[in-house]
Each structure stands twice: as structure tokens, then as C-alpha cells.
């Protein structure tokens, strides 16, 4: 009997020892069950014959201890120097790579796991952005700006775990799947003219990397909803319930990002875990509860904000599925330094000693006391370190609702950490024929940039990676590359350490320029220029609104040697706080330039039909007149004419005109008055016709 059972349960052998022990019982169950199961056939649903599998129950119980899928939610709030507030949502799901990966999931979104499985994605990042990140006022030297500041529109890059020749096919399929999943036109990235394969200047360098952007993609709620669908709690509970659509999209900057990675969490694990990182970065303007008195000092005061005033909602408890659910409030280095200065000033007047964590201070007030204060660890003691207050949702004493408010008491001015060089890109030249792209890098001031002593300045070199994709219809001449450092022309060989160029191919691939610039550390400004010709597109290739111009995607400028990381003094359980631990990762500073708008010559799109019509008419005229000439009898016509004299009104008119022509030479000499009166009559007639025409057609 056991032999036969095994035939029907061949898979049982795969379960292991536990299953084989239960086999005799299983056999017994199969034989004994069905008679007891004879039930009334009236009850419409069924619980009949399948009880025979009861014996498997014991097999279900014995299971391997396995790594669970995990989900965390975090929100970071940060006041910005220009009276705005940054809110950075961070959701992370982790799934172990089991044999059921892509088929059976508990927390991890099945759709994403299936994508990873189907296209063998090793790494992927997809971002939808509206607005432009202001590196100068919102920061360009911190982990958030280097990872979450994205170019407008859609940006997608992916690294595939497939043989090199299959990467393009995987990319194309992936774009289609994603566009279906996120209700966006990501499928336009399928065409080989829109994506490129960076090799040098993009961060995770790999042969299997593909990169593409759609600068003109409009981002709205229909993209956010599928993004939220990937979260186990969606926007029903937890931190994500703050995402009130009108208040998010009212913001100055909005970037929704999805990042897939494979991380080996334990060293002994055979497979790496899939980590899905979903972030939403918004910059909001607090509505500012205006105080009644409006004297000058109050006007300088930053607006007071709270979560409910920013988002119009409060956090009603944590997402029940999240392993951790935290809100952070971050104060920048400069703000902390300013506080300390203020504190020193106050000390003169009253001797209230302020504690180091600045929870009580003269400048602002926080409504809820943080659970934990994290201090940044700095190498140098001269600067003051930034502070991060941690609130754990659900653990705090206040019942369920959490509404953090931040009240400014005295005006404070501070500035954020700026990127080492400010980059901007612009077009030079005029006309629809040619132009020049210029990328200019400017130092942010004497004190910013690198902390290098004067002695090192001579030898020290600042490497800068520039990655620029140019569509094929902008025909860039790479030999015209010019580099200016401190407004002095430099030879390309001196200034460029490495360069990788793949020229564009018409209607096949875009032009890609990757270069590593080596700039001296004390550089004030550096500019590179490239000349280009504007190409012509086929009539089918123009987008619907061609007169608007064509976008050149943002250039990416990376500073590989400068890392925007924040190290915290409390080493403790940072492992369970993915946002803070991601701050400690080595992220090179990344800077996206503006999107350029290049006007191209746009044709009149009704042209082909006009051309056809005109050509045909000319041909018809030619043909008709040729035929007429061929069959014309000149002598006979004359004879007829002479014989008949005036007959029809038309021929009479012709004859009259002819006669007047014959007379004309004489009349002009004889009577100028007659000539002038006739001429005036004619002119008046023509004018009348013209007026009529104008009136009728107009």
C-alpha cells in the first residue's frame, strides 16, 4: 500500500523526514474517510470527497524555519531654509529568495516579485518626479538629495542578470510591464533611441545596465495609486495614510521612487534577499498660521507647521504589518550651529542652560518629546553635528493619533549643505540650424566644497563624472568639445581623465557622453561646451506637440570621491531602521542638471497632401494643354472666326480686347485721357474684385 500511495504523492519524498514518518497514517486516512463523509446532497456547496487528503495535515506542520518577509515604514521631516518643509517617506519590503519567490507571498508585492523573477532584475530604480530639486536651498550634500533628487519626468535604470545579448530584450519587456503596472508611458523607453548603456559615469557600473528617461512625462495620482498598491497597508493606515493627494501635489517638488536591490542580509544565506525600497519625497510650503501682529521680526519668522497642517491628516496609529514605524525630524548642521549661537546670546540675559539635544530652545518648540535623539558623528570637532529626533509610532504615550507640530518662536536664518559645485546646463547660439550645449560647474563659495588645506590644493584633484545622453536628432560634434577651467581654455587631454563616447546613430541610438573630469580642488568654475547640428525628423516621428520643442534629458554629474553620508552616534538597532541605515551607506553626491528644451524646425504637417495636390494639378494642366495643342486646328479656327464674326458673348469680349490691343498703340499716342479713364476703370474693377474676395473669404 505505501508503495502505491507514494505513486500518487511523488512530491512527498521532497518534504523530508517528517513526511515519511506520517505516511502510514496518511494511508489509513485515505481509506477510512469517505464513508463518514456521506452527506446530504441538498446542501449546495461541497465538502465531500476531498477529505481524503486529511493525512497531509501532519506534513503541513513540519516546516523549515524560514526567513520572513518584512516591511517597515518611515517618514523624515526636515525644515528647509526657504520656509518650506521636506517630507521624505520611506517604505521598505524585504523578501527572501525562496523557491516560492514570485509565486507565494505574504507581505512583499507579488507583482514586483514576478517582475524580478521574469526579467532577472538584479537592480532597478524607477522614479516619477514633478518639479525640480533646488540644490542650493534644499541641500545637495546630504543622502536624501543625492538619492531622492531626480530629474523631472520618469527615470528608469535597471541591471539585469541575463547574458549580455539578452539585456535589450529584457529591458524592452520590462518597460512594457512597468508601464502597465504604473499607468505611465514608460513603454516609450522601449525604442532604442531613448535608452542607453552607460559604462563609466553612472553609479552601479555594469555591462547589463540600461538607462532611460522621459523628461516630459506628467506625473499624477494615477501613478501614485499603483505605487501605493504595492504597500501592504496601501494608504489605509500607518504613515502612508498621510498621503492626501491634493496636499502632496500642491507641493513644490514631488518625487516618487521605487528601488529594487538584492542584499545579502546574513553572510551564510545562500541567496540574497530582494529589497524593495519605495520612497516619496515632497517639498511642501506650510500654510503658515499667520500671527496677527505683522511687524518686521514676525515676517522673518518661519511659518509654523504641523503634520495636520501640511498634509491635512494625522497619523492614526501604525500600519499593523510594519515591523517598525518611525517618524524622524532632522535638524541640519547649520541650523544646530545657529541654535547654539542663539543660545550663547541668550545666556547673557538669562542663565537657563540648554541641554545638548536642543529639545528646549529659544527658537522653536516641538509638540511631542522625541523617543530618541540621534547625533551625527563628525570627524572634525569644529562643526556642530546635525540632530535627528526619532518618534516611534504606536509606542508613544499618546493614544493612536500622532500629530507632530513645529512652532518657530524667533527668526532663524540658516543655510543647508550645498553641493561642492553647482551645475547648470544651457544652450548657446540661435537659429534652427545649429547650437552649442554648455555645462557649467561653479563653486558655491569659498567656504564650501572640500575641506582641504592650502598646501594640498596644488596636488589635490576633484574628479567629476559627467553623464550626458543626447537624442539622435541633436547631432553633437564631439571633436568640438572644449573645456574651460576658471574661464581659461584648457586642452581636453589635460582636463579629462577618462572619456567614453558612443556617437548617435540616426533613428537607432542616442549619443552618449561619459567623462571623468579632473578639476583642481580650488576651482572656481569649469565649463564644457559641445557644438551640435539640429537634425530633421521624419514626419511620423514628431510628437503631437512638436512646436513646443524637444527635451534633452538631464545630465548627471557625480562626485565619486565625496560621499553624502551621515553617521550616527548610536550604533544600536539601526539595522531595523532602513532609512537611517541607508544614510550611512556610501552614496556619492549626484546632481541632475536642468532639462534642456531645443526647438527644432517643425514642418507644416499638411504639407504632403498639399504637395500631392499641387503637383497633380500642375501635371493635369500640362497634360490638358498638351492635348489641346495637339488637336487644335489653327487655320480652321481663323476661318471660322472670320466667317462668323461676333457670336457668343465670350468671343465678343475677346474680340473687343484684341481690337483694343490693336488700337492701343495708337490711342496711347493720340488720347491719353481715354487711356487713363480705361485704366482707372480696370483698376477699380480689380480692386472691387479683391475687396469682394477678401470679404467673402474672410
Amino acid at each position, binding site marked *: 500500500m505505501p508503495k502505491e500511495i507514494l505513486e500518487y504523492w511523488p512530491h512527498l519524498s521532497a518534504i523530508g523526514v517528517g513526511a515519511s514518518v506520517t505516511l502510514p497514517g496518511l494511508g489509513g486516512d485515505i481509506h477510512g474517510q*469517505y464513508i463518514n463523509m456521506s*452527506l446530504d*446532497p441538498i446542501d449546495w456547496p461541497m465538502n465531500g470527497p476531498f477529505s481524503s487528503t486529511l493525512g497531509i495535515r501532519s506534513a503541513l506542520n513540519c516546516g523549515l524555519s524560514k526567513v520572513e518577509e518584512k516591511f517597515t515604514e518611515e517618514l523624515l521631516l526636515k525644515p528647509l531654509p526657504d520656509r518650506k518643509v521636506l517630507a521624505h517617506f520611506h517604505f521598505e519590503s524585504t523578501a527572501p529568495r525562496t523557491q516560492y519567490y514570485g*509565486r507565494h*507571498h505574504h507581505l512583499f508585492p507579488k507583482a514586483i516579485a*514576478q517582475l524580478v523573477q521574469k526579467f532577472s532584475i538584479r537592480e532597478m530604480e524607477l522614479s516619477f518626479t514633478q518639479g525640480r530639486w533646488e540644490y542650493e536651498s534644499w541641500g545637495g550634500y546630504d543622502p536624501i538629495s543625492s538619492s531622492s533628487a531626480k530629474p523631472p519626468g520618469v527615470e528608469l535604470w535597471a541591471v539585469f542578470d541575463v547574458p549580455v545579448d539578452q539585456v535589450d530584450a529584457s529591458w524592452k519587456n520590462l518597460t512594457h510591464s512597468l508601464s502597465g503596472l504604473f499607468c505611465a508611458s514608460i513603454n516609450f523607453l522601449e525604442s532604442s533611441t531613448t535608452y542607453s548603456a552607460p559604462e563609466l559615469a553612472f553609479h552601479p557600473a555594469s555591462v547589463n545596465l540600461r538607462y532611460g528617461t522621459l523628461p516630459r512625462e506628467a506625473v499624477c495620482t494615477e501613478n501614485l495609486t499603483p505605487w501605493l498598491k504595492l504597500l501592504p497597508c496601501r494608504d489605509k493606515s500607518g504613515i502612508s495614510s498621510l498621503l492626501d493627494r491634493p496636499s502632496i501635489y500642491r507641493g513644490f517638488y514631488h518625487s516618487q521612487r521605487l528601488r529594487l536591490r538584492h542584499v545579502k542580509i546574513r553572510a551564510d544565506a545562500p541567496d540574497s534577499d530582494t529589497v524593495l525600497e519605495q520612497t516619496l519625497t515632497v517639498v511642501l510650503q506650510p500654510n503658515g498660521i499667520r500671527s496677527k501682529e505683522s511687524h518686521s521680526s514676525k515676517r522673518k519668522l518661519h511659518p509654523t507647521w504641523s503634520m495636520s497642517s501640511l498634509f491635512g491628516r494625522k497619523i492614526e496609529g501604525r500600519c499593523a504589518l510594519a515591523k517598525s514605524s518611525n517618524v524622524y525630524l532632522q535638524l541640519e548642521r547649520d541650523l544646530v550651529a545657529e541654535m547654539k549661537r542663539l543660545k550663547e546670546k541668550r545666556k547673557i540675559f538669562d542663565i537657563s542652560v540648554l541641554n545638548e539635544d536642543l529639545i528646549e530652545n529659544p527658537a522653536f518648540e516641538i509638540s511631542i518629546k522625541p523617543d530618541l535623539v540621534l547625533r551625527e558623528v563628525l570627524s572634525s570637532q569644529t562643526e556642530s553635528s546635525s540632530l535627528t529626533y526619532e518618534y516611534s509610532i504606536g509606542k508613544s504615550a499618546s493614544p493612536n493619533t500622532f500629530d507632530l507640530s513645529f512652532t518657530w518662536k524667533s527668526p532663524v536664518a540658516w543655510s543647508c549643505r550645498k553641493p561642492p559645485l553647482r551645475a547648470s546646463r544651457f544652450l548657446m547660439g540661435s537659429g534652427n540650424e545649429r547650437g552649442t550645449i554648455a555645462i557649467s560647474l561653479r563653486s558655491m563659495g569659498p567656504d564650501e566644497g572640500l575641506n582641504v588645506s592650502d598646501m594640498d590644493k596644488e596636488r589635490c584633484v576633484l574628479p567629476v563624472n559627467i553623464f550626458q545622453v543626447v537624442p539622435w536628432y541633436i547631432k553633437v560634434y564631439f571633436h568640438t568639445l572644449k573645456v574651460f577651467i576658471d574661464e581659461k581654455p584648457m586642452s581636453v587631454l589635460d582636463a579629462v581623465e577618462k572619456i567614453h563616447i558612443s556617437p548617435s546613430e540616426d533613428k537607432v541610438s542616442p549619443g552618449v557622453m561619459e567623462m571623468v573630469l579632473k578639476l583642481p580642488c580650488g576651482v572656481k568654475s569649469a565649463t564644457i561646451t559641445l557644438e551640435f547640428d539640429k537634425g530633421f525628423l521624419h514626419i511620423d516621428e514628431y510628437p503631437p506637440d512638436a512646436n513646443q520643442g524637444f527635451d534633452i534629458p538631464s545630465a548627471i554629474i557625480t562626485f565619486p570621491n565625496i560621499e553624502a553620508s551621515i553617521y550616527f552616534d548610536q550604533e544600536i538597532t539601526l539595522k531595523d531602521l532602513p532609512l537611517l541605515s541607508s544614510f550611512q551607506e556610501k552614496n556619492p553626491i549626484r546632481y541632475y542638471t536642468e532639462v534642456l528644451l531645443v526647438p527644432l524646425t517643425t514642418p507644416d504637417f499638411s504639407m504632403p497632401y498639399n504637395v500631392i495636390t499641387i503637383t497633380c494639378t500642375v501635371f493635369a494642366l500640362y497634360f490638358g494643354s498638351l492635348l489641346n495643342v495637339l488637336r487644335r486646328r489653327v487655320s480652321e479656327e481663323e476661318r471660322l472666326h472670320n466667317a462668323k464674326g461676333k457670336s457668343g458673348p465670350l468671343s465678343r469680349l475677346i474680340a473687343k480686347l484684341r481690337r483694343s490691343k490693336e488700337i492701343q498703340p495708337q490711342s496711347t499716342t493720340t488720347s491719353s485721357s481715354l487711356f487713363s479713364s480705361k485704366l482707372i476703370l480696370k483698376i477699380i474693377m480689380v480692386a472691387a474684385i479683391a475687396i469682394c474676395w477678401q470679404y467673402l473669404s474672410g
Partner: protein
Amino acid sequence: MAETSEISEQKAELEKGFDPNTMRKTKPGVKRLALTLSVLFSFLLGFPFLWKSIEIYRAPLPFKDIDSLSERITSNPLQFPCGFQAIFVGFGSKTYEELSRLEYSIFNRMTGLTSKRTQCGSCSSNFSVSVTFDSDSSCTQKGHNPASYHCGEIKNVDFNADDEVVDDELEFVLGRSYSKGKKWYTVIVVNRDKMIKVAIGKYRHAWIVGSVSEEEAALRISEIFTKVFMNGGNEEDVIHGEFMPVGADGKIVLSFNLLNADPQDWIYDWDFDRIEETMLSPVLEALGHIANISVESQVLYHTPKSSFSHWDDERGAHIFSVGDLPFFVNSNEWHLDTSVAAGGRSKILHFAVYIPSAKECPLLLQVPDGDISETNGFISPMWGGIIVWSPPNCSRDTESNYQTRRKISSHDLQMIYEVFMGQLRQLFGLTSHNLFIGRSGGAIKLASEKGFTEWELDFLSRQHACSNLHSCSTTLSSLSRLVQSLPRMIIMEEIGKQVEFSLEAAKQAESDASLGIFYSSAGSSRQARSLAEDAFFHPSIMSVSYYSFEHCFAVYSPFFLPVSLHVILAALREWKRYKQEKTKYLTWVTKSNAAAS
């Protein structure tokens, strides 16, 4: 010289009567007429060339074959040959006449029981019956059974044993005699002094044990043959063929979902991978002949139902009734439909376990007669099934905010799985009772570990083959209608190929069906359907880039309209003039002739 003077005289005479308006002396020239006419003719000749040059490519489609296929399918539904054999054990020896009488009576009863209308995918019009009497002393057989049963073998089977054992032993004895192609369904009647017991095995046989007369046995046998083996054990004569939940590409994705209505109250999880491994995989293997099935599962949260339920004091539970079922599935919040695996035209069958929130727990389904449903679940044809599973004790622990994830106990999971299986069977059009109640009495149905017994699978594959061929022929005929209605639509070569292959596969399926090879017929019919759908949904057909006649006219009319006007007018004028001049000349000729004479 006299002649010349005469002629000049004549001339002068004629000159007098000559009117240049009505007469002419010379023959009218045909030069210009020939010219204009030649231009006109070359124009007319040029038209076919132009027509040819602006023609679009259309792959030739076998319209006639498509029509004949659809005609065949509608007028003459697919029929499979089935063979039935009845083996009587312990009835003593019979003469050949008695045997043939018995066979005739079984055959007659079966014909009476099958519906008059020949249904697609059944074997109601093409079956054969053979009867064998197997007694200790003699063995008589009647009927054309090529795989003859070897007499005496059945005695080794101990009918007192457990039904499962009997079933397996019978399979061992009879299985050897099954030929590869046509499957024989067998009923064994064992005559002994006992209560009558009828059992239908999980292979292709049933047995009747007990003191039973031949006539009664014949009645029971014919009922088992027609109702069970032919119609899959469905009491009603409904044919579910059209509702076979298989995708056009022959794939099914079984998507299992665990829906936690409100995770703030409780969170339940399951070990679905185990279920798949231990219980689902044999089912999928068994159904492999019908469809290519893949399984996936997920757990969803914050998924309230969208219908209402009311509290019932008597039962101590929340009740929702059958009338609420259409509103139960909350398609706004239940994100069941995300599967990359189900690419294209696969069918997704959703199976959902709904765990109610604390304020509606326990939640029970009330069937129309007022009772509570035993399974607490329901199906929606072609969509899937839903089970409501209420947690064991409907109390939430309020102390901790962070919910621990609880597992559904394996006993409950087992029950859920059983209901799922029953729902799957219902979706395929099979009942799930383990009793068969006929007019002549009930019979016990043995269950298979695979979820589907072999005779059920036979029934399903017959149905499947039929429904596939049906949908293939409708798809192809609507494609041919579409193609014929749009004469200027481009048809790629690939579409022509697909249609051709589809027709070939359909033909193969038909021939397999006539030979009684169910599984192979189902396979070819699946291929035929999928190819037909591929052709119909070919991207080039979907695009609107067909070159319409209006478009063509708009492009060419600026040239051809004025030119043809010129040419035709010129030809007409010349022709008119030629006729006019000719009459002039003729009048002159007659006049001069008159003068001459």
C-alpha cells in the same frame, strides 16, 4: 483635252452648288481623332496597372475551409466513440441469445436516457456495449470489444474488502486490457447474498455487489453508463462546455488570495507553499491534459467586503445572504488582478479566503432556504471562488497595538483547501457530492487524491475539445467575416499561416476525436483555438493603418479628375467633329455624283 475641259466644266458646275458650311470636298482627316482616341485608350489601359500598383498585400485566407469547419461544427457536433462493457460475475452460464437480449436491453435503456439532441463533446450517438458473463464453468462474451476481458480474472478480486482496495485491484485486473486509444468503461456486477452496494471507482469502472436480478442490474448499469461515465455525474443535462474556464492560450493561473479585511483586528497568514507542494500539485498534474496550470498566492490587507451583513441573535453571528453575493467582491480594494505570469490571454481563476474584521465576526452565509451554508463559500462562474473563514474566537486582543501574525491552523487550512477543490470542480462543471443518486438508486463515488477521477477527466477533456473547436470555429469565421468586410485591410503573411495551422490542428482534433483519443484531441483542439485567437488578435489587424478607398481617392483625384476630363472631352469633340465633317463630305460626294451623272 476635251475630257479636261469637260471636267473643268463639271467643276464649275459643282462649284456653284458648293456650300462650305454644309459640304467639304476632301475626306475628313483621322489624324487628330486617332490621337485623342489613342490617348483615351492608353488611359483606360493604364488604369488596371495603377490599380495593381496601389493594391495592398492580403495573404490569401482559406475562407472556404473556414466556412466548412464552422458548418461542420454547428451541424454535426463533435462526437466521441465510447465503449462500455458490463461484466456479470456469478450469474451462472447463459446462452448467447440471453446475452444478446441483455445487451440489447442495456443499449435501449441507454439510448432512452441520453438526450435526443446530439450534444457536442458527448458520446451519446456513438457508443458500443459489450456484455460478458463470467461464471466458474463458462464464459460468454457478446459485443465487439477488441480488448477482451480475460475471463476468470475478476475472481481474484475480493469484493468484501475496502472499496479503495477493490478499486485498485479492479484497476490492476482491467487496466491490462485497456488498449491505448479508446477507453472502455466497465461495470462489474457480482451476484451474492448481501445488501446491494454500488460504488463508482476513481478509474474507469464501477461495481455492483449484492443480490441483484439481471434486469435490475441492467437498469443500474445503463444509468451508470449514461449519467456518470458519459455526462460526468451531473444529474441535470446541462452542458458546461461553453464555460470551460481555460484561457485562449490553454493556460490557467490559479491565484489564491488571503484577504485580511482589517489587519488592525487580527492578521492571519498561511503556508500556502506547503499546500501547493503536498495537495495541489497532483491535481495540477491530473488537469495537465486540459490546461497548463500555474499557481500563485498572496496575502492582502485592508480588504473590506463591499456588501452588508446583519447580526442574527439566534445564531450569534453576522449573516449575509445569497442576495448580497453580487456585491461581496470589492474590486476597488481587492487588488487580486496583478499577475505577470498571466500574460496575454491566460485565464486567471481567483480563489479568495475572506477573513472578516472584528465587527463582523463570525460571518456566515445564509442559503436561500434559511440554513447556513456548510462551506461558507460561493463561486462565481469563470471568475473563481470565495470562502469566508472566521477566526476561531472572534475576540481581538486590545493590549498590543502591534499585531502578531497568526497562522491559520493546518486543520482549517485543510478544510479551506477542500472547499477550494470543490469550487474548482464546480468551475469546471462537476459536482462534488460523493453520492450519485439515480432513479434506480444511489451509488458511492470514490474520490481521487488528484481531485478529479479518471472518468471525470475523460468527460472534461471531451468537453474541452468540443468547446475549443467551437470557439476556434467562431473565431475563425468572425475573422473571415471581418477580412471580407474590409477589402482594403492589410493582412500579413503570418496571419494566413496561423489560420492555416489552426485549421490543420482542428482537423487533427476531429480525427482524434473520431478515433476516441480524448487527451490528444483536447491537445490539438487547444492548439487550434490558440492559433485562431493569435490570428484574430494579431497586432497588425488591431492597427487602423489600412489604406482606405477614400484615402486613395483623395490622393489621386487631383490628377486624374482634371486629366480624365480633358481626355474624354477631347475624344468626344473629335468624334463629333469627325462625324459632322464626314456628313459634309458625304453630301458633297452625293452632290458631285449627282452632278456627274
